[in-house]
């Protein structure tokens, strides 16, 4: 699965808007994830997950920053996320199903925050992009 030129353009231009609200988007995405899919909280027993928690905000920022790295290096996502891929494979070992859940919650957050930009084409491009990011992050699992 590889991204077409049109898809890359859509992703990069949406990223430009996301980057201006990156932290709040990250926090909202995680909050949506934990509320809709409570089982995902099992990966964060060491976190205060109450809304407004500093840990939640810091982690949300991290996640969106990584998505941004992928967008900024869209021609070579594998190289850009190589260290994160190893981290997920050998240390974090988050079950692969959860990448779909997180990706969905990010899409919902983008749909709610950028209604004019979240066209069907942008929706498709971002769904595909996040699937590529997810597969990079799980490619060293076994």
């Amino acid at each position, binding site marked *: 699965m590889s991204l077409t030129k049109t898809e890359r353009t859509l992703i990069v231009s949406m990223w430009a808007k996301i980057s201006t609200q990156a932290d709040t988007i990250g926090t909202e995405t995680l909050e949506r994830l934990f*509320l*809709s899919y409570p089982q995902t909280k099992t990966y964060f027993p060491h976190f205060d997950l109450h809304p407004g928690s500093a840990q939640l905000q810091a982690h949300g920022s991290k996640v969106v920053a990584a998505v941004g790295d992928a967008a900024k290096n869209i021609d070579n996502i594998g190289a850009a996320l190589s260290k994160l891929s190893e981290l997920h494979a050998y240390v974090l070992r988050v079950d692969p199903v959860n990448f779909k859940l997180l990706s969905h919650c990010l899409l919902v957050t983008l*749909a*709610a925050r950028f*209604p004019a930009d979240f066209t*069907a084409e942008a*929706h*498709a491009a971002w769904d595909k992009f996040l699937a590529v990011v997810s597969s990079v992050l799980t490619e060293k699992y076994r």
Partner: protein
Amino acid sequence: MVHFTAEEKAAVTSLWSKINVEETGGEALGRLLVVYPWTQRFFDSFGNLSSPSAILGNPKVKAHGKKVLTSFGDAIKNMDNLKTAFAKLSELHCDKLHVDPENFKLLGNVLVCVLAHNFDKEFTLQVQAAYQKVVAGVANALAHKYHCGPGLFPDNHK
């Protein structure tokens, strides 16, 4: 068996009352076909599905989307009894339509994205969570009667 709290039911029905079923249905089905193009396999008779704008403007897609979402609306009225409410439709999707139940999950999530898109700030974390439960419940209910032909054990589809 999915259980909905009073708050969840209220959140779901309140948002539902503001939905334009015809438009939202067309949008949701259209986006399913755009975002997950392999789902077009069920709609060979629908004519032009060659581009996102062709899909979203296709009258058959809109009509069918309206049908699907109207049915969804029936679910909203029967949230405590989804399996019974969808029993006949479940058999139809298995025996006649031959739809892989995975597609119900895909459509459910596309619908959630469309609702977020249309309602933006109103589509809060809590409203989303309630709708995720509904779409999961509907997907399960639609898959419940699947047996799809003779299996290893003759009476395993009770």
